[in-house]
């Protein structure tokens, strides 16, 4: 299943394959083995892509009910089409929509929100590349389902504990908009049945 998600100018194409046959070296006896591949727009994948792949993989593993498909492999391939800031949260949203579209069993939905903390203390949601450069800290959260729990949090830069809490609260509020977007897209898709 393929789907492309673009907030602003950042655009990521996600393809999900599975549950398919796993190689003997990679298969897990009780769960599905999830693999994420992130391909940048230009050049070969480097260390930054690998670390993002691990973050995405751990988030998806928490959401997907892998125990229903033991000894299988689920592959998620993300291709960056254009990057204008907030790339990791765009990848998270694309991953969730690909999982929804493919019909894999999920325990909960998740979405990604990026916050940039500016030098004067203001919080900006979904910053552009320029705002990310000028910010004091950039935080990305993966927020789960209807109870708004945090699945993953990653920070670049330095900020105090109170500021982190404020960014988290802002991200949880913004997550509602993204979940509503998921619901509307699924409604549109099933309206033709």
């Amino acid at each position, binding site marked *: *299943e393929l789907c492309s998600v673009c907030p602003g100018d950042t655009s990521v194409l996600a393809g999900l394959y599975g549950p398919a046959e796993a190689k003997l070296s990679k298969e897990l006896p009780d769960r599905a083995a999830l693999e994420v591949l992130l391909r940048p727009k230009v050049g070969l994948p480097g260390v930054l892509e690998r670390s993002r792949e691990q973050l995405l993989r751990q988030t998806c593993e928490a959401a997907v009910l892998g125990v229903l498909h033991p000894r299988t492999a689920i592959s998620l391939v993300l291709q960056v089409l254009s990057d204008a800031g907030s790339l990791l949260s765009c990848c998270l949203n694309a991953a969730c929509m690909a999982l929804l579209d493919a019909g894999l069993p999920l325990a909960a939905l998740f979405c990604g929100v990026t916050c940039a903390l500016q030098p004067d203390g203001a919080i900006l949601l979904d910053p552009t590349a320029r705002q990310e450069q000028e910010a004091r800290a950039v935080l990305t959260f993966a927020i789960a389902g209807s109870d708004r729990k945090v699945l993953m949090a990653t920070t670049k830069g330095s900020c105090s504990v109170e500021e982190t809490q404020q960014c988290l609260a802002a991200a949880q509020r913004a997550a509602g908009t993204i979940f509503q977007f998921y619901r509307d897209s699924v409604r549109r898709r099933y309206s033709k049945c």
Partner: protein
Amino acid sequence: MAAERGTAAEALVGQVVLPGDLLLLPAHYDEDAEGERLRLSAGTAPQGRLLCGPGLRRSGAGLLVTKCGLLRHRPAGGGAYWVDSQQKRYVPVKGDHVIGIVTAKAGDVFRLDVGGSEPASLSYLAFEGATKRNRPNVQVGDLIYGQFVVANKDMEPEMVCIDSSGKSNGMGIIGQDGFLFKVSLGLIRKLLAPKCEIIQELSQLYPFELVLGMNGRIWVKAKTVQQTLIIVNILEACEYMTPQQRKQALAKLSGN
């Protein structure tokens, strides 16, 4: 922040549900046929013979949705809820009739590709009238229509081409010629519904043979290659056509 923890299941029947939604079941499932049951906790979990179908899992006091799709309900026989979702990947289910492609012969079993995560196995004795001396003539690359007797997440799926009384009942090796193609699982379920207009309309166009596999595979054979390809194209397209568009397309073809 503490949003509604769950909505009543009946309110959402026929509507789109997303993974993570919790469906609450009405309390009257407690007073079902087995009213003599002792309740250890004060009636938190529903006790009726409710069937929890694909896309739903039991969790605490209700049902947790795990796939996105339309919620359906069948009140007969204690009630059943399930999620009607569109997907292309097939997961083997016991009792499903599928079309498999023979990929290998390993001793006494054939390995079939059914589109799932593992190849299914089919014993050579699982055909009507097959004995150790009278083996069925199956080659690598043949198409077989059979049903699953064993299909769960922990074991390799196993197929047979006979039903419980030993008759083949339409199953077995699919003949020569014809055309095999893959569609989404939702279209197969639509075509298998009791009064499917698509098949009735197509049969008025040309006579043809049709085998539908629940794994998304369809085999079609008509008198000429051109007629076969026309039927294939219509079946592939009718997933996205409204009934009027389909009738127009068929009228154009029968006029030719």
